[in-house]
């Protein structure tokens, strides 16, 4: 008899248990979402309009100054919030859809399909993170869709692996065998029994991957391989302002701080989600 049973079955009540840090993180995410939606209302300038006031410091007229093209940093930052979040979320959703679905179907289909898929997953994983996305972006027309697809594919192994690990774990549980004895088929077991039980793990993984997708998009843009220069994602803003670090540090600082703040908040929120679901992380993907 274990001590856990000796102490009486103390049922864990899932209290939100919001620490001040988590609460702040939730607030930041909420504000970011609001800003993303209300950008047209909050913006003071046209984010795409060029002016002659190049690299103006923050002050009157331009709340956060202007960049090397004379564009208003504040307005671009607001529009960039929605774009950066949307690209990140799109890539993470795509990774979830590709990774989890392919893995589930391959696992239900049997050994050969499983080997083929996870051979491919091993291949993607052998290419250092962003290099795969780099290759993809180069291979296709650069642009929003390419960036999202490239990131979606390069992050899909995270979901494929967690799907396999949790699927195998669930298939080792007697309840799936019990369903077989009752006459349930493979697809019914995979979709009715296994999927609801691994959904928590997938959501948790999504929460971890989302901020990393946002960062990766900005890294790609920073390296000049992301979206087109005029699109005001944060990464793009950092990239175009970096050469003028000396003249206009504000144009770099603003998007960097926004990026750091939002990814930080998303990561904390993801951690809170994980704690609530009390599920183990995928071990082999830090």
């Amino acid at each position, binding site marked *: *008899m274990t*001590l*856990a049973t*000796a*102490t*009486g079955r*103390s*049922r864990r009540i899932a209290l939100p248990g919001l620490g001040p840090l988590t609460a702040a993180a939730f607030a930041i995410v909420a504000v970011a979402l609001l800003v993303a939606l209300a950008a047209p209302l909050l913006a003071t300038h046209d984010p795409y309009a060029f002016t002659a006031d190049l690299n103006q410091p923050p002050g009157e007229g331009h709340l956060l100054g202007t960049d090397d093209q004379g564009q208003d940093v504040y307005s671009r930052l607001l529009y960039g919030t929605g774009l950066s979040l949307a690209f990140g979320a799109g890539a993470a959703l795509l990774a979830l859809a590709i990774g989890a679905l392919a893995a589930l179907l391959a696992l239900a289909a049997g050994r050969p399909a499983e080997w083929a898929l996870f051979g491919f997953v091993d291949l993607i994983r052998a290419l250092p993170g962003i290099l795969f996305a780099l290759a993809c972006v180069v291979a296709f027309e650069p642009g929003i869709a390419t960036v999202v697809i490239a990131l979606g594919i390069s992050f899909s192994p995270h979901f494929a692996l967690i799907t396999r690990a949790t699927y195998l774990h669930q298939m080792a549980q007697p309840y799936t065998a019990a369903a077989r004895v*009752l006459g349930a088929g493979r697809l019914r077991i995979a979709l009715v029994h296994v999927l*609801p039980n691994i959904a928590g793990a997938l959501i948790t993984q999504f929460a971890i991957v989302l901020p990393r997708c946002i960062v990766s998009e900005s890294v790609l843009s920073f390296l000049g391989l992301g979206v087109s220069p005029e699109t005001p994602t944060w990464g793009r803003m950092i990239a175009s302002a970096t050469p003028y670090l000396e003249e206009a540090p504000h144009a770099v600082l603003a998007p960097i701080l926004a990026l750091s703040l939002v990814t930080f908040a998303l990561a904390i929120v993801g951690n809170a989600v994980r704690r609530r679901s009390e599920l183990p992380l995928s071990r082999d993907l830090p």
Partner: protein
Amino acid sequence: MTQRPDTQRPDTRRAGTPAPASGPSPREAAAAPLLAVRDLRVTIRARTGTVEAVAGVSFDILPGRTLALVGESGSGKSMTAMALIGLVPVGTTVETAGSARFGGRELLTLSEAERRALRGRAIATILQDPAAALDPLMSAGEQIAEALPRGLGRREAAGRVAALLAEVGLDGVPGIARRHPHELSGGQQQRVAIAMALAGNPSLLIADEPTTALDVTVQAQILDLLARLQAARGMAILLITHDLGVVGAYAQDVVVMRAGAMVEAGPAARVLAAPREAHTRTLLAARPALRATAAPSAAAPEILAVSDLAVRYRGAGLLGRPVRALDGIDFALEAGGALGVVGESGSGKSTLAKAIVGLARIERGSVRLGGAVLADPMRLGRAARARLQYIFQDSYGALNPRLTVEDAIGEPFAISGRPRAGRRAAVLALLDEVGLARTHLGRLPRELSGGQRQRVCIARALALSPEVLICDEIVSALDVTVQAQVLGLLRRLRAERGLALVFISHDLAVVAELCTRVMVMKDGKAVESGAAADVFEAPRAAYTRDLIAAARALDAPAPHRDLSTPSPAAGEGGGVEWVTAAGF
């Protein structure tokens, strides 16, 4: 062999106090108690509130004697012992009140450092599951050496380790000190754990369900070993167990606990022979006696038969050699009959059950259901599936954690495509049949007790109106009182539905009580089979006799046995068990 070189021990040990066969109550004993616990209260503080796990327990342990703390799960018996030495699980905060004096020192007010100094030296502990209690990365010898007193030279430490290994009967195993835990059998692991406990020369040994995870014959060997070590070293033992049967054979004093409170305490012989409290009587009555009660009916037609059944498992790794789990099994079961399949772990009894329902691939042989041969149990049609159902040992794992009781029991209907509308009435009828109420409909598996979950599994299997129910160790995880209730349910179902049972169990007494036929299995083969009465009253195979002897030794609510004669199953110093297990 039993050298005791330690000299700097405090005066807490009374060496070699002879254990009287049936002593007076500890309170009246002349010898000073080694451990005197008075009104011990343990409160567990969790985020969700506080739980009083132990509510006022008092007992004395005399030097050289064994006191058994007995109770079902949740009775607080483990917490009582663990709170004394500060071994509560990491992350739990407990508060203790009352007093516990060990050799004159108050344990409850000690600092963690002071407690640590006691642990492993004056007070040693053996945990329940030896496989989990040994560090998988460290060899047996290193783990024992770690528990030795500090400051020994390398050679001296090695000598002590060898002596300890000999003391626990492992000296015959080649290279034992260098082996890692996964290279040892369950019995060997527990012997290593005992050697670890002895390394500090304890005067009190806390044994927390030391044999629950082991096979019957090994259980008897381990308990005999503990009894012999106790006699040789004069240590006191605090034996924590759920099994009143063990108490009669191995303890002088007993404390019966329930829900954190003390129910009854006294000399083991008195408590077992004339229990004063109702709960003690219930516990005693719930244990079936090892006596065959039913005979197979000759008139009934055959419902399930297997002939020459064999199963091979793929070996571990890429080129691992396949392992034969089942070899040439034959049996025939009459409609409404009950076949008990008994054997120890690794005997293949569970594989047999899985092969019949198609959860393991059959290599050779055939399964006949109602006279017709099943082509391949792994690809059974729905009609045949419905006739043959299977219930798992682990009722928690066998239920999808996200499905309510209603959905779980209704699953067979959903698979066969029965409309949702008609399902509830059928589910309610099944719930009623297994003794659950309508209020359980919306519950999730984790909101049910073990017994209730096993009833849900039975109801789910019954939904298809099977003719044969295969029960794979379905009561072994349950407390005795709950076990008795589930067995009663199975008996009733047999009578009311004419259900035939294949009942897989390691527990001979349970099989004897329920089954008409018995098959004894070992190493994938049937050692003996026949009518229950014949097998239990006049066993032909030596292995069957060993099993029965071990079961009887472990279930002796009789006065304390003489320690000098090991139980028949124990063999010489535990030599029996490692010969079969040393396949490395």
